[in-house]
């Protein structure tokens, strides 16, 4: 337990700079029983709390503003691995890549692979419904979680979902996944494991403009080939990576690269790779090369996964943005983002999951410069509005947290936000778990159709 302000400073922020909130107290249970005891004590005292995994979140979701922070990162046991059923049961603090390492001897892996996978926890992944490059083919956390044992904010322990994946009644597990710590704390998580693909082809295509790379992306998606991953990085990102210790051998004079991975059975994979290569060339790729071996593949991926780290060299602070657009809109939305950046005199580095239209415009800036901060803020709002106008959404994998509260009204009506609020109150009538996140407070008005008190018999 940490209670001194000097000790708590470390927990004032998560992966997203620009926000800083000091918890009143931080507790780090080592066992499931300790988690239960803490949650039940807080319930008795009606004290709000914020669950936190590794603190790698990018929406300010794990910030505790003068309330109790519960760190789950010491619950790190893999409770069971069943290679026949391809299931594992883990505690919430198990690190994403540690789970994959634990099941590697069985030829299996855990599919969702956020870029922070070397640090982020499964509990945090469940809270955020985390994605990652390979979610293009294999799906996000929601599609890989079979069951969760959760402790609700009032101390009740519930089983959501089951190992078989078949269920009757409401999909409460589906509601829990991605609830950003507002519905309770996962005590254990049953996940589906995926067999390692027998064959992999990793291609690097480089382009002299973002627009041609975007056109290649749209062509590949429309062709029906489903790459395991299809990532794009723009010129500024390429150059930041190549200047860092994560240099991957990307051509530094290119304005965009696509990192495309195909996997599956070996038969027919080379002809798919040849088709992808041809589509890149048709769109205007300068060169396309295929990784010769696992070492080269790992190096190409390292550049991508460590791109955020590499950008740390460029500016003191970095906003890692997150939005999704329909895939046919990539060329024009990327052009809009470029226009916004130019007009607001800021630098945007784009590194993102192009295959599913999940943009990550990253803005490097100096948070101590109020004028630059204001311009960054305005640019972010304009970028979100452009993505929404294109038919997209304000977050694909990072969550709403604190950072995107103001944008919720861009995509959801008051009635929809109020409905979400009511759903939260089913799990947490006192709204003590991760207070102030996800739904703007003013949206939690009285549900106009419901007679006053109608729901309380059941939920209170």
């Amino acid at each position, binding site marked *: 337990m940490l209670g001194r302000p000097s000790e708590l400073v470390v927990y004032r922020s998560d992966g997203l700079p620009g926000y800083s909130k000091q918890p009143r107290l931080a507790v780090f249970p080592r066992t499931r029983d300790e988690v239960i005891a803490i949650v039940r004590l807080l319930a008795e005292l009606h004290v709000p709390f914020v669950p936190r995994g590794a603190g790698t979140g990018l929406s300010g979701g794990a910030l505790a503003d003068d309330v109790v922070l519960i760190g789950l990162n010491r619950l790190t046991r893999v409770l069971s691995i069943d290679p026949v059923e391809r299931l594992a049961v883990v505690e919430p603090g198990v690190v994403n890549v540690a789970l994959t390492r634990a099941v590697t001897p069985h030829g299996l892996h855990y599919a969702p692979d956020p870029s922070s996978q070397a640090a982020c926890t499964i509990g945090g992944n469940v809270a955020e419904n985390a994605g990652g490059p390979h979610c293009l083919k294999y799906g996000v956390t929601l599609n890989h979680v079979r069951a969760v044992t959760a402790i609700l904010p009032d101390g*009740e322990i519930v089983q959501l979902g089951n190992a078989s994946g078949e269920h009757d009644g409401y999909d409460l597990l589906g*509601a829990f996944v991605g609830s950003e710590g507002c519905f309770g704390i996962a005590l254990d998580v049953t996940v589906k494991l995926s067999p390692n693909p027998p064959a992999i082809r990793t291609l690097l295509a480089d382009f002299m403009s973002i627009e041609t790379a975007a056109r290649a992306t749209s062509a590949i998606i429309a062709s029906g080939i489903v790459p395991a991953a299809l990532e794009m990085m723009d010129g500024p990102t390429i150059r930041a990576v190549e200047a860092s210790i994560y240099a991957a051998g990307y051509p530094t004079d290119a304005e965009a690269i696509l990192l495309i991975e195909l996997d599956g059975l070996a*038969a*027919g994979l080379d002809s798919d790779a040849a088709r992808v290569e041809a589509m890149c060339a048709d769109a205007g790729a300068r060169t396309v090369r295929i990784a010769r071996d696992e070492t080269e593949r790992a190096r190409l991926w390292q550049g991508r996964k460590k791109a955020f780290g590499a950008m740390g060299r460029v500016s003191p602070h970095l906003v890692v943005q997150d939005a999704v657009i329909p895939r046919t809109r990539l060329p024009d939305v990327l052009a809009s983002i470029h226009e916004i950046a130019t007009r607001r005199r800021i630098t945007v580095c784009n590194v993102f999951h192009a295959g599913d239209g999940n943009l990550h415009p990253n803005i490097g800036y100096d948070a101590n410069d109020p004028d630059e901060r204001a311009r960054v803020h305005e640019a972010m709002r304009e970028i979100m509005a452009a993505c929404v106008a294109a038919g997209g959404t304000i977050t*694909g994998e990072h969550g709403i947290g604190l950072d995107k509260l103001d944008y919720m009204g861009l995509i959801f009506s008051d009635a*929809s936000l109020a409905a979400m609020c009511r759903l939260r109150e*089913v799990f947490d009538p006192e709204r003590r778990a991760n207070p102030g996140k996800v739904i703007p407070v003013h949206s939690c008005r009285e549900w106009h159709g419901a007679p006053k008190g109608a729901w309380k018999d059941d939920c209170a």
Partner: protein
Amino acid sequence: MTAPNAHPVVARTGHGAAAPAATSPGAPRTTSDVRDMVLAAIDRHTPLRIVGRGTWLAGGRPVTSAEPIHLGALTGIVDYTPGDLTLTARAGTPLSEIAAATAAEGQWLALVPWGGDDGTLGATLATATAGPVAGMFGTPRDVAIGIETVTGTGDIVRGGGRVVKNVAGFDLTRLMVGAWGTLGVITEVSVRLRALPECDETVALPLNGESSLGTLLAKVRTAPIGPLSLELISAAAARRLALGEGSTLLVRIAGNAELVAAQRAALAAVGDVVDAPPNVWTALRTVEPTEAAVVRLSGTVARFAETWSAAERLAAAAGGLAHASVQRSVVRVVMPLQDGALSEAGAAALRGESRDTRIFERLPASMWTSVAPTAVADRLSRGVRTAFDPHRLLNPGILGEPA
């Protein structure tokens, strides 16, 4: 709250029956029409029975006294940009219409639920009905990316959106899938699509003697194949589909020509392979009789053979059939009814102990309480229902929920 005046219970038409009065006068054509009807129902204290094309009226528990709200006119594709591989349609749109529109662009909605394509998109999601490709592409919860509903409070509520990746807000989409309309009348749905594979073939591997099931499945599971479907069908089902006299494993392999040829060769090394007719999946999806009890058993990979035997015994007791989605270890048992009732042996078999988790899709009305305890009696489920349908107006009784 229940209706003060008794309303006639909606006639329970059969599975796969034609659409009843889809365009009856006053049937809602827009979401706001649906909202107006729900608001009127609140005022009149009259519960509603949500009806699409009527293919699912025999599914779920009997709905208590309620007035039908026909969504058969709430149809049409709202948004379809093929390059995005997503589609948005009104809930009453038949799956067949979506299949035709997407096939024209070389794409498909990979739901293909049991029961065929007569039903609506909304009903498929409301009932969370999966089909033979769910092992590869997932169940409706994996395919839906956004849902619009009119809740029991008359609010128009949207979850998700029209893009394939989205974590904005709490997940109302997942909540609505499989809720049987009890949290909201689904009015519009967005789904992800897939490209139709270049080659798409189905082969059959007949089982030779009962002892070979375990051996065959072990070989198939380790063979270098990545099938779209791996469906084991009982001898009775095989006979109905003219696929021979014994149990048969159907394997749907797809991809580019080279990949399909390689998988075909891999299967030939496992057992005797014969080509299945191209319509085999449509035939299997619509094989069940109109009047039937349907139960799903979910087992595990390790216990699959045991679950399959239990399913075959259940099917045999009622003169029915069984089929199993091997990739998901889910067995579906279809038990025909005579004069609305199960045979005595069939009913006794359903009342017996089971080591497998059973989920009932359809049952004679009198049997629900004895064999299928409700799955929504827990505090959270009751709370969710109350939050979205405080007056118990929507399909009351269909989940066996406490009054």
